[in-house]
């Protein structure tokens, strides 16, 4: 594990060591083993989802399919049973879309306005409020669940689409606010002052000056929120109601409530289908995803 060419650790230009010393072999050995460990579940998921059941019963978990079939995928999408209904996971897919999209847009809008007001206007008491909001990020969801159920039921939003969207906006608010606050805090204050001198009001400066400059942070926020909301299980289970159950909840229903023989191929196809949106987003967005992880964390 000796470092060769130690002077060149600058990320941009990194000449690789060409010599294959035992230490280098060790490094690659470890990384390859680790990569296998990380990839095996994905591989098992994929091959299982295209095997017919009689092949699965043979017990060759890691073998490639002998007669690949897409029937499990069709079944997972259209006809697998999620509890009493047997219409596959497609309903859950669309429910997740309808939950995720408005929740993402609203929580980004609220987060952007919060961050902007906190960074530039700093109304009295806002910092204390922000501190409480950040502590709120650590309140275990369970503390809030039942009171929120009661509150939403009181205004007839419990088990409705607007209800679950509202819940996602509330739970996403600390992270979104922090993200935008940190971003706006990194912009030069003079910009804002100049806009004030020119007579810009609160909303005008936000809409015409700040928002157009916020594209990078909006992209990061969108990736984070789509991933978080799409992958949510608990909130969907409690607040969405039976007509709006998200894909994750339906997936769990398909797999953990089946009676009779378990159709592992259908289960794995349904699992991949459920993971498809966040995985596609992850593979396409690359570094932006990582930036989202680090963004809220760097300044704190």
């Amino acid at each position, binding site marked *: 594990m000796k470092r060769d060419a130690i002077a060149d650790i600058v990320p941009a230009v990194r000449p690789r060591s060409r010599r294959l010393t035992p230490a280098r072999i060790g490094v690659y050995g470890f990384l390859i083993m680790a990569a296998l460990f990380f990839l095996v579940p994905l591989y098992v998921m994929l091959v299982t989802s295209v095997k017919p059941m009689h092949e699965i019963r043979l017990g060759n978990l890691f073998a490639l399919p002998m007669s690949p079939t897409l029937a499990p995928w069709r079944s997972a999408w259209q006809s697998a049973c999620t509890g009493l209904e047997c219409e596959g996971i497609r309903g859950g897919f669309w429910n997740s879309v309808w939950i995720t999209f408005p929740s993402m847009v609203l929580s980004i809008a609220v987060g952007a306005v*919060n961050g902007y007001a906190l960074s530039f206007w700093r*109304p009295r008491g806002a910092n204390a409020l922000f501190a409480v909001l950040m502590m709120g990020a650590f309140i275990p969801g369970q*503390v809030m669940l039942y009171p929120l159920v009661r509150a939403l039921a009181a205004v007839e939003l419990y088990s409705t689409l607007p209800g679950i969207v509202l819940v996602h906006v509330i739970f996403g608010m600390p992270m979104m606010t922090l993200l935008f606050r940190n971003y706006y805090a990194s912009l030069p204050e003079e910009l804002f002052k100049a806009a004030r001198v020119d007579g810009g009001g609160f909303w005008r400066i936000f809409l015409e000056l700040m928002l157009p400059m916020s594209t990078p942070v909006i992209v990061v926020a969108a990736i984070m929120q789509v991933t978080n909301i799409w992958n949510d299980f608990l909130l969907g289970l409690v607040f969405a109601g039976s007509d709006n159950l998200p894909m994750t909840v339906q997936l769990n229903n398909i797999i953990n409530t089946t009676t009779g023989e378990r159709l592992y191929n259908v289960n794995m196809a349904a699992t991949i289908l459920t993971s498809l949106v966040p995985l596609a987003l992850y593979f396409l967005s690359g570094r932006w995803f990582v930036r989202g992880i680090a963004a809220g964390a760097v300044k704190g």
Partner: protein
Amino acid sequence: MVAIRKNRAACWSAYIALLPMVLTVLGAYIGTMLWTARVSVSSARIFPTGDFVGLGQYERLFRNARWLLSLENLAIYGVLFVAGCLVLGFLLAVFIDQKVMGEGALRTVFLYPYAMSFVATGLVWQWILNPELGIQRVVRRLGFTDFTFDWIVDQDKALYTIVLATVWQASGLVMALLLSGLRGIDDELWKAARIDGIPVWRVYVSIVLPLLWPALSTALILLFALVIKLFDAVVAMTQGGPGTATEVPAKFIMDYLFGRANIGLASAASIVLLTTVVAIVAPLYYARAKAVQRGLK
């Protein structure tokens, strides 16, 4: 005069704009906490009641074997999960930082599980670990007929399978955070260490690790939040079983809130969980804020 009036109007806009945040903080955070605290000292079962029973629910809670087991499980899980993620994540970051080929691809591979839901990864691991058709069967078919790997249906070991699956899912997060920390370390440090003839592993343990503290504390906080929330993976992998072997507090609270309709007891459990979180996160958060401040100066 004009300027002041303008300021005031603009400030009002700021207050109005922050209204959703005010309502969330007061209603969704403080309000729900107070409400839960109030219910936890009442005898409420299905519906909230106005009576006051002191700490009766808490006494009952700590006589409840399932709750005690949940807490114990969470403690064991938490230590193993956090340690596992930190060790694996740190090793991955250090090895990736050795100027290896295919760095981008490796990073993508190590982090992709984190983009999936805990339900999905839980189900995959449940499938791989199931003794009838999973790894155990594969190894037995290779000729090792006595091989057993049935942890997921073993009362004493099922919890470790949840550790395995979630470490697999979350250690990429630690890797990503620490790698960006490693990249921020000054090259001069490596030169100096080399001139002094300090072994590389020693530099990592004694110099680099302390320098990574801001990134580490961030990782710790994120991991700790995942520990407390542990619910999805348990539901997907074992549903709390076999028996009650993998029960955790989040699941206990859910069951008593919605399944067993005992909101008084569930509220008491929530408050205990909240207190634990505050007791652990607050010092961590404070230490991290200090470290970040020092770093900026």
